[in-house]
């Protein structure tokens, strides 16, 4: 189970650039329906955007699932790809590191800072799993 006691409420296939914006609007809609404020939506949706794009650029596509959690103030997102994996996660999380040219190299670290909790597991050659929890409301 990705999140203990969580219930999957949406799945988004990630293949092209356009799927990143689909993932964003899906998560945004879900958070809005839970009464989330704009700032919280913007923060978490930006994090979602980063990891979804990573799955497409570095992971050759993947799948994102959105979870309802027992604590109704929270929302969980899991992003799974079967790409090349990350050799050194600490390095990848560091600002300014990227395997690509023309990249700021701040996406992964930025997503970690924007989410409430952030875990990443990766095996070289087997893909990467990112799990994030975001705050919908503080009450």
């Amino acid at each position, binding site marked *: 189970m990705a999140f203990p006691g969580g219930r999957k409420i949406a799945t988004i296939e990630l293949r092209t*650039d*356009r799927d*990143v*914006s689909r993932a*964003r609007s899906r998560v*945004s809609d879900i958070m809005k329906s839970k009464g989330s404020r*704009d*700032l919280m939506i*913007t*923060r978490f*949706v*930006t994090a979602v*955007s*980063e990891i979804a*794009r990573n799955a497409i650029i570095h992971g050759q596509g993947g799948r994102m699932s959105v979870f309802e959690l027992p604590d109704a103030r929270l929302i969980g997102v899991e992003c799974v790809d079967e790409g090349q994996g990350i050799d050194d996660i600490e390095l990848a999380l560091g*600002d300014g590191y990227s395997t690509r040219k*023309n*990249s*700021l190299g*701040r*996406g992964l*670290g*930025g997503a970690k*800072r*924007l989410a409430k909790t952030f875990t990443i597991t990766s095996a070289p050659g087997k893909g990467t799993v990112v799990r994030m929890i975001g705050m919908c409301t503080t009450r």
Partner: protein
Amino acid sequence: MTEKVLETTLEVLKEDAEGLLMEWIDQADEDGAKRSDLFSEREERDQAASMLRAFRLGVRDTSREGDFDLRDEHWADLRGILSEITHERVERGVLPGEMAALVLALKTPLFGRLTDKLVGQPDRLIEEVLIVSKAIDAFALYTNEVFIAEREQIIERQRDEMLELSTPVVELWDKVLTLPLIGTLDSMRAQEVMESLLQAIVERQAEVVIVDITGVKTVDTQVAQHLLRTAAAVRLMGARCIISGISPKIAQTMVELGVDVGEVRTRSSIKNALTDALTSVGVAIRPIERNQRSGA
């Protein structure tokens, strides 16, 4: 026995094609799948007849092999006709469910005839009905797939059209341009934005460019990257770039992301950016005297 598994079905299709066709159309009418408002009797008949013909040819070849798979070579004719007819019907406003219902309506008359023919042979009857049923279900599903594929094409086309529409560079004043960005800024669009902007700088001899992102919902690192690169290119062309419309929530998010805008000028609203831009080209907006107002 398995080699001749659809023998009776084939017989029915050969012997009583006309009767089957009539009954099929009647059944479709009863099921609400016939659209007399959109198609004439003749058109409905012709469509159904060509489907039935292709179905018979498919059944003829299937009966030799025994197993059913819509992707097989001998169903190619029927697949072609199904997508053609689905296309035609959807174009005129038939719902995808109605198209599927039309195909499914063939079951009733066909099974009726099979039952008559195979009286006293319940095993054969069940066997044929099962396979034919599976086949017809697959055809109905196939029409749905065709429908979805067409929808996606339309969406794709509309998106391309929007993409072209959505990069208007507007001249606000001599040497001052603005580019209001709306929606998402993916790599493809960023490239177009950059191109049309740089082109406009040359054509209008612009000195200041305001890129307004009020309408951009999410600024992640890729969008930030595109904006910064656009600003850098504008600078290389000898113009100044102001990014306006950065809302408080986007500012906070960008800080968390660790995006550094460097020397690029940013303003919270397009109004502030315009004041800035006009000042730098030596123009100011100021109130006019009451007696100079037009119409006063």
